[in-house]
């Protein structure tokens, strides 16, 4: 169930579009922000709320890579490995993170703290190599600066 705040947001969103189905992406975003991931139960709830078939919601969730059906670790490190980052050492950065965290790309540490993923171009090519942790971009990374980012997060 949505928080009262999110239910209010849904009503505001209804004013923005002439058809309710257009709310699917914004409402799935609200759901993911509130619950951390989008479970089958959540999809059913969104389907009911927007009067859109469940199958449609499932189709949308599985199409867009940013919608996730499983929760990630507390910190989700997404490393770009596309061309501009690759040319400036993203492979070494990935290897360093895999060694340091003891997990491979796509995995989460046993304590649920870190998830490591490879992502496509994030639009930060002048800061290559880069990674995002949540919405925060970390650019011009070396193994040293990456370690500092991890240490900062570790403290939180």
């Amino acid at each position, binding site marked *: 169930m949505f928080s009262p705040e999110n239910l209010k947001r849904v009503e505001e969103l209804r004013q*923005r579009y002439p*058809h309710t189905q257009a709310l699917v992406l914004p409402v799935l975003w609200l759901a993911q922000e509130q619950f951390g991931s989008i479970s089958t139960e959540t999809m059913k709830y969104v389907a009911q709320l927007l009067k859109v078939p469940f199958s449609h919601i499932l*189709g949308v969730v599985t199409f867009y890579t940013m919608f996730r059906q499983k929760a990630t670790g507390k910190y989700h490190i997404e490393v770009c490995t596309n061309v501009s980052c690759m040319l400036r050492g993203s492979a070494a950065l990935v290897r360093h993170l895999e060694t340091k965290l003891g997990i491979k790309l796509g995995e989460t540490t046993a304590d649920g703290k870190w998830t490591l993923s490879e992502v496509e171009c*994030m639009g930060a090519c002048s800061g*290559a190599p880069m990674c*995002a942790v949540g919405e925060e971009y970390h650019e011009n990374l070396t193994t040293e600066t990456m370690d500092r980012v991890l240490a900062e997060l570790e403290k939180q």
Partner: protein
Amino acid sequence: MEKLLLPDIKDLHKIDVYEANGGYKALRKAVGMKPEEVTDEVKKSGLRGRGGACFPTGLKWTFMPKQTTKPKYLCVNGDESEPGTFKDRQIFEFNPHLMIEGTLIACYAMGITTAYIYIRGEYGKWIRMVEKALADAYQRGYVGKNILGTGFSTEVYVHKGAGAYICGEESALMNSIEGERGYPRVKPPFPAQYGLWGCPTTINNVETISNVPFIITNGWEWYSKIGSPKHPGPILVGVSGHVNKPGVYEMPTGAPVLEIIHKYAGGVPGNKGIKAVIPGGSSTPILRGDQLEGVCMDADSMKAAGSAVGTAGLIVMDEETDLIAVLARISKFYHHESCGQCTPCREGTGWLEKILNRFLRGEGRQEDVDMLMDIANNIEGNTICALGDAAAWPVQSMIRRFRDEFEKRVRAPQVPAEEEAA
């Protein structure tokens, strides 16, 4: 040249600073003109789209029907997902009001009452910056009902993407706003006839729409004299890869590529030679380093050289770069981002990736080179949208211009690319 899109003014993203520097005066001027005069001004200026296709913007605006009972829509395309492209983010961060002002002028010119600014989901921080700027513009009466007391009303909303390169394709973008999967639509009908919810719609790139205010302020003649006559105006060139100072640089169109690399981006580290450049984002055909003399950043010059301006995302590769590894990475990207509707793209992009990985493992065969070309040729032009072409062009151009690289790999397999690229 004085910088127009990203001028060096502190805190320009704040509405007070933007207004103090002449902001929203172009909107005031535009609403005092007839809508068709505004469109005419943009048409005569020669402004061409900055999202990749270089289509004349004013001409696109004239495709919108004047007599219609349906509502009309504008989509501002800020999906910015083409590898090597990172310019629109600069506008969101440093000059969002310029984009909002351009959006409003475009809406006035075409009689549009609702605009959606579509921004890729990864840009969460920048979405909040744009939303803040938009809220301030609403508060000052530049957006919303009865704008500046003229009776003209337009609503502007931000729509957040969710991680799909294909949504930068205009018809996929519209489907995404409608709450669908980002599947491109068959054209015709074109968006101006049948766009969002079947209504007349225009889609313009963020940088394109941000050119509109100063065209209105200074007039089409002034604008048409900036840069290359057939592709005029300022352009944001994003330089990445093997350069000393990667970044987004504003310059008039038509700057020589070598000057961009050496003067703006500080040259190649270690003064190494340039093996190749991708001039306008990963889909544009790769150019050899030894063919760059005289090649300029405008549509005609790039076409003559056998490539395209695209998004002006220039990726520089020094003489030690493993181009097969670069191509394999590009092909992996297009395979990942193919929406899956059209067989040639869905299957072909996967085959390209697999065969290129064979080369990286040292298992590439002589006949694989021709097979890659054959697959690329069978994708190009055979799909609903241009993603198929975008996947084919890098492969075709790489084989055409660097066939020797593939042949060297057949004869003498190297270490895995991942190791080497690092």
